[in-house]
C-alpha cells in the first residue's frame, strides 16, 4: 500500500525542493514521523515547542479535511492523495 503526499512550497526550503513523496505510512502519525525522518530539517519547523504539529498545518485526504475522517485514527488507503497545506488562507470577512 502506498499513498502520494504533496508538500507545499513553504516546506521546500527544508526538503531540498522536494514537492512530492510516496509513503507506506498507515496513518497520519506514521506519515509525520516518516516525513520528519526523510527531512530532518523540517522537524523543528513542523512542531511547536510543545512537540505538537503546529495548528496552522492542515492535512487533507483526497478532497476531505482529515479531521472529518477521524484525524489520527484514519487508516490510509492505497492511492490516497495526502495534501499538506499550511495556514490555508482565504475567507470573506
Amino acid at each position, binding site marked *: 500500500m502506498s499513498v502520494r503526499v504533496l508538500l507545499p512550497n513553504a516546506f521546500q526550503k527544508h526538503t531540498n525542493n522536494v514537492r512530492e513523496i510516496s509513503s507506506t505510512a498507515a496513518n497520519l502519525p506514521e506519515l509525520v514521523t516518516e516525513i520528519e525522518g526523510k527531512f530532518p530539517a523540517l522537524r523543528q519547523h513542523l512542531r511547536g515547542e510543545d512537540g505538537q504539529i*503546529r495548528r496552522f498545518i492542515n492535512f487533507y485526504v483526497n478532497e476531505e479535511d482529515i479531521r472529518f475522517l477521524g484525524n489520527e485514527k484514519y487508516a490510509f488507503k492505497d492511492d490516497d492523495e495526502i495534501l499538506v497545506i499550511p495556514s490555508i488562507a*482565504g475567507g*470573506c*470577512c
Partner: protein
Amino acid sequence: MTTAYDLRCRECGKSYGIQPLSICDDCFSPLEVTFDLEYARSRFTREAISNGPLNMWRYRALLPVPDSYDPQTPAGFTPLMKAPRLGQHIGATNLYIKNDAVCLPTLSFKDRVVAVALANAKEFGFDTVGCSSTGNLANAVAAQAARMGLKTFILVPADLEPAKILNTQVYGATLVRVEGNYDHVNRLCAQIADRYNWGFVNVNLRPYYAEGSKTVGFEIAEQLGWRLPDNIVCPMAGGSLITKIRKAFKELVALGLVEDRPVRFFGAQATGCSPISTAVKNNTDIIEPQRPNTIARSLAIGNPADGPYASRAIRESGGWAEDVSDVEIVSAIQELAETEGVFTETAGGVTTAVTARLYAHGRIKPDELTVSCITGNGLKTTDCLQGAYEQNQAIRPRLTDFENFVEERNSINQALSFLGESYVS
C-alpha cells in the same frame, strides 16, 4: 516615502520585507503587515486625512501600497447611518449601520481589500490575478482587474448564486466553477498559487489585501467625529474583518487620533456554519472545522483562516459571538429593509439577526453606541427571498380599480390587526 511597513509572521515575528508571500517558512503561520507607526505619526493625521479623497485612499498612509501607486479604484467611504427604526424594533437607542451594501464598484466591502491587493499585484509585476471566492470577492476582483488591465482566474463553488456568477463574468473574468464548497475551492486555489506565478488576492497577496479591511474601522471612527464606539457587530467568514477593525482602532489610538476606550467586538455567523462562534462560546482559540450548510453562502467557510485570531480578539475585548438560523437570516434581511431602507445580502441578515439577539439577551445595553457592519448588497442574493412576496393581481388603469385595491388591503390589515399581527408592505 509616505508609508513604512513590512511583512511579519503573526506567531514567531520573523520579518519578510515586502514580497508576495503569506506564510512563514519557519513556523508556517500566517504573515501580517506591520506598520512603523512612529513613521506614520506625522503623515496619518486628522488634517491630512480630511484633505484626502472621499474614498478609502484618504487613509493610504496606513495602507500597504507603494508610494508611486496612483489609485485607480475609489472604493469605500460608505455611509454610517443612525438606525432608529431598526433600533425601536430590537430595543436599541444608539444603533448605527455601516453600510457597505453600497461600497463601490461592486457593492460589497470586498472592494476595499481588493483595491489594496491589486495595487500590490501591479507593484510585484503580476499580469494575472485570481482568488477563491464565495462571490463578493469574485465580483470585486473581476471589476477592479478589468479597470487595471489585469487578466483574471477566479475560482468559485459551482452552486454559487447566479447573480454573483453573472456579476463576475460581465467584467470578462475567467470564471472556474469548482465542485464542492468554499473550503474545497480554497484548497485548490492554494495549490494553484504554489504552481503558477500569479497574484492570488487571498493567498500570496493576502497580507496586503487584509489591511484594506482596516478602512472600515478608520471610517467608523472618523464618521463618529473621531471617537470609538462601545460595540462593533461584525459578520465572520474567514474571521479577518473583525480583527482588522480592531487593528484599525488600535492604530488610531496609538497615533492619538481618537481617545482610548474599550470597544467590545461581537461576531456573527450562521448556525449552519459557525466554527468561530462555537469557539467563542467554548472560550477557546481552537477552531473545529465544520461542513457548511447555510443560505449565507458568503459566510460559509468551515475552516476559517483567521478564526483563532477572531475568537481571541472577541474574547479579549469582552465581546461575544452568536449564530442564527436561515429563517432568522431572511427575516432580518426584511426587517432591515423595512425599517432602514437598506437591502442587504444574507451575510447582512446574519449580522442584523445577531445584533437583535445581542440586545435581546442583554449582552448589549440599549444606550451603548453600537455599529452593526453590513458588508454586502441584497441584489446579489435575491434567491433567498424567492416566494416571500405574493405578486398582486394587476389592476386596470382605472381609479375605481385602485380604490377597490386600497379597500381590499385595508380590510386585510384590519383583520390582521384584530389577530394581533400586522401586514407590512
